[in-house]
């Protein structure tokens, strides 16, 4: 456990050292939040769209913003750089588990990402008024669901990062992943707005657990048993993806060719 804790601390310290880079990496997310707030404000007004009122939508978008901020330390780009340069060979000789090590680095930065998210919440609530808060039970479910976002999103990022064992162009893979996750997680638009068959399929995919589930629980749209089911689905997917990542890694390392040294 100790080496993983050290990795987590080192990753947090690295964020704090390069804080300007970190803050600017959040800019895309901040302006996406701004645009979405403006759009939904214009669309919903005092009424509601698809059963969501303006306070509920604000809750939804803030959670989407937070889920975007979580696990955004470019772990995948770090992996990509080391795989492409061959430095990953050094990682292979270390007496720690590669997957757990990357998870530790991701978890290490979470508190800073939550801090950024909290600033977003304060800003929006101050400027645009109160958001929708569910009862304490659902608030607890929301917190658990938000916590489940961390391993789930990490695994999606990690598995795409492993693509570097096969391709040299990680930037394109990363963009493609961001686009797919943005759509299928409900980060751009709640899944209920998509064509019904498509939305239903998306609800059962792992991506829904990255934004839609916690966001709908806080917005009060997912309650009771449905909320619990959503949370369980997140956990099940996290476990399945963990195993999938292991399997991918096992095949991926065999692809590795490091030239010279």
């Amino acid at each position: 456990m100790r080496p993983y804790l050290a990795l987590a601390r080192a990753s947090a310290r690295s964020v704090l050292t390069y804080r300007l880079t970190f803050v600017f990496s959040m800019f895309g997310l901040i302006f996406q939040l701004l645009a979405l707030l403006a759009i939904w404000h214009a669309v919903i007004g005092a009424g509601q769209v698809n059963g969501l009122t303006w306070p509920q939508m604000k809750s939804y978008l803030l959670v989407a913003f937070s889920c975007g901020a979580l696990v955004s330390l470019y772990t995948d780009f770090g992996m990509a750089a080391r795989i492409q340069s061959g430095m990953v060979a050094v990682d292979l000789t270390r007496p720690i588990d590669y997957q757990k090590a990357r998870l530790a680095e991701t978890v290490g930065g979470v508190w800073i990402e939550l801090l950024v998210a909290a600033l977003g919440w304060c800003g929006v609530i101050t400027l645009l008024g109160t958001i929708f808060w569910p009862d304490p039970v659902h608030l607890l479910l929301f917190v658990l669901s938000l916590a489940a976002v961390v391993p789930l999103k990490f695994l999606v990022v990690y598995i795409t990062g492993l693509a570097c064992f096969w391709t040299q162009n990680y930037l394109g893979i990363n963009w493609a992943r961001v686009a797919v996750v943005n759509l299928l997680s409900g980060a751009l638009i709640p899944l209920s707005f998509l064509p019904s068959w498509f939305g239903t399929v998306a609800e059962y995919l792992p991506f829904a657990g990255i934004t839609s589930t916690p966001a709908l629980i806080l917005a009060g749209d997912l309650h009771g048993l449905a909320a619990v089911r959503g949370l369980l689905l997140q956990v099940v997917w996290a476990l399945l993806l963990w195993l999938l990542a292991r399997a991918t890694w096992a095949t991926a390392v065999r692809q590795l060719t490091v030239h010279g040294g």
Partner: protein
Amino acid sequence: MTGEWMRTARLYVRLLGAQLRAAAQYKADFLVMIFAAVLSQGVGLIFLAALFARVPHLDGWSFWLVALMYAMVTVAEGIGSLLFEGTWRLAAMVNSGELDYLLVRPYPVALQLMSSAVGFNGLGNLVLGTAMIVVALCYAPLQWSPLQGLILVLLAGSAVVVKLAMNLATNAASFWLQGRNPVVAYAMHQVGELARYPLGIYPVGLRVVLTTVVPFAFTSYYPVSYLADGVDATIGLLTPAVAVACVFIAIWVFRRGLRRYESAGS
């Protein structure tokens, strides 16, 4: 004078062509980047379509007109990546002192810089964005005449120039910041994304900023507004003037920055 301009343009094509051929050697790269660009822009379009499936208007604008604004930004970004991607390398070049190489060659530094890289993702943006514009123009409720068509071309071209000039000006901030990454340009790029939607949805202060300080509203909203004869119709005609002003400001900022450049140690 004209000969000089022709030579400058021809050399730009040659310089960029060299980058293009070099980059095209990596076919998988090429395909991955185009695929990623189309996917990213396509998702944005799905968002718009899903939104407008539930609501008829966004601040009084119908789907096709908003799609037109969205597509104009997509096209401008596409042209920026495909033909002027090198602009984004300025920060790294200033930081490493690599800009020295450009200073000794007999060709404008800014043009050498801009032609020093190719982003194939731009091709994806360009194709998808152009297709979107054509479809949107067919369906949008617009009055057509030859003059209107001419104005459309002029405004759309100017809109792209505004975007490119803003790109150069904001990247030139790296002359002062000297960091490895073009943080200011990146942040401003994100501000520019706001122009994908009608200006009226934003608070007044932001509208003023997007019209004057960082005139991204001229990359999409104002030109479309003129074509649709909407609320800010006449101001749309100012787009070419804004484009010229942006180019002059960008060149001025770049020159000021270049004078400040002091190479890297060692």
